[in-house]
């Protein structure tokens, strides 16, 4: 019988090794897999590539990733610390210890979506003709310049949902879906922390993320305080 539940955050993350790439969902606290982020911190894995909207939220839950310089590359849309004093990641970025691929948020989401959809690359008008798009291939379509962007994939992805069943089907509530819907298909191992587990299969119309895209479900009712 298919059953994608794992017993704990630790078990869910047991095979994350040095050099792994990890996509992490969440926006403004909603859909933020805070327990998995804390768990990632606890693994001690280093030389990581993280693909996450905002580094501030990642540092909030997993400060050790940056304090111990365990992230070598970040693909994100926001790499600004909260305070006036530079954060660890801002210092590492300035020192050339952390490579940051700064993406417009729509391009970020679409690159991930492409990674899960078997689209190796696509053209988008966003960032064509401005500094952030410099160095990218430009092509005209219908008289408008677009830049070529490539797909993003990762070894793992983390997200948080409201409810899941043994098939790995996930229901999101509110605005929890955000980047997770695209990240799960774009990763080899999608891990979802959920608030509740349903012993019966979710109703077809309640399923947002099909279990086909999900490898592991871990029940963590409380998301805890989200710092960011």
């Amino acid at each position, binding site marked *: 019988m298919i059953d994608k539940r794992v017993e704990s955050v630790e078990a869910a993350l047991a095979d994350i090794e040095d050099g792994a790439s990890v996509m992490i969902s969440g*926006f*403004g*606290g*909603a*859909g933020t897999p805070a327990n998995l982020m804390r768990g990632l911190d606890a693994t001690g894995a280093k030389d990581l590539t993280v693909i996450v909207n905002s*580094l501030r939220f990642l540092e909030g839950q997993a400060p050790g990733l940056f304090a111990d310089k365990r992230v070598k590359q970040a693909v994100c*849309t*926001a*790499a*600004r*610390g909260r305070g006036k004093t*530079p*954060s660890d*990641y*801002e210092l590492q*970025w*300035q020192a050339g210890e952390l490579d*940051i691929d*700064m*993406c*417009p*948020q*729509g*391009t970020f*989401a*679409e690159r*991930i*979506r492409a990674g899960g959809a078997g689209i190796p690359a696509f053209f*988008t*008008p*966003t*960032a*064509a*003709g*401005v*500094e*952030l798009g410099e160095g990218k291939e430009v092509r005209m379509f219908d008289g408008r310049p677009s830049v070529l962007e490539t797909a993003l994939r990762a070894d793992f992805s983390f997200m948080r949902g*409201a409810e899941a069943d043994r098939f790995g089907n996930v229901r999101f*509530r*509110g*605005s*929890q*879906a*955000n*980047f*997770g*819907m*695209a990240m799960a298909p774009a990763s080899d191992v999608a891990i979802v922390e959920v608030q509740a587990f349903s012993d019966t299969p979710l109703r077809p119309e309640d399923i947002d993320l099909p279990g086909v895209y999900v490898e592991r479900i871990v029940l963590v009712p409380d*998301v805890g305080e989200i710092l960011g």
Partner: protein
Amino acid sequence: MVEPLSRNQIAWRAAQDLEEGMVVNLGIGMPVLASSYAPEGREVIYQSENGIVGVGPEAAEGNADPDLVDAGSRNVTLAPGGTVIDSAGAFAMIRGGHIDVTLLGGFEVAANGDLANWDAQVPNKGQLVGGAMDLAFGAKAVRIMMQHTTKTGAPRLLNACTLPLTAPGCVTRVYTDLAVVDVLDGGFVVREILSGMSQDELQAKTEAPLTFASDCKALDAPAGL
């Protein structure tokens, strides 16, 4: 001379231009204030780039749902007929030209409509582009809300932007504390100017040359906002 508009008054003024049925994305900061001031009875659909299609009012105190936030991380509600999609879908909506108007903050706007609103090049601080660039490239109309000058009095309406561009030639209208200015055929056209302010005074606070519309009106907003 009448006082320059407050942030809420600028938001009020911008909101008056939102039309029935429009799909509107409001940027973080001053723009999001506009949702409170759309004329009574006018149905505007607010989209938020984290996936909300039909943002309602902020959640009442004590009634906040931590799983339902907008792109500014505000605890919001859904408007009647609203729903939530994912981020890739929300940006497909933005990039695909389904947003009628976006109201965004700005650092600088050039006379050709160039916008700089994402990278102020603060020393020692990391970058943050977020959804601004997709909105500036994708929305059918890009309208900017900002103070007419910087805190030190330097103009923001320029001949050419000095900061990294968000998008070239995208801005159609700018709402400031002093004026409503359109970008038209590569130049700034003033549609409304603060009551009691002279054209010369406004020009003195503006780097790029201003043209004043023949029907240029007084910029007014309700007091006490």
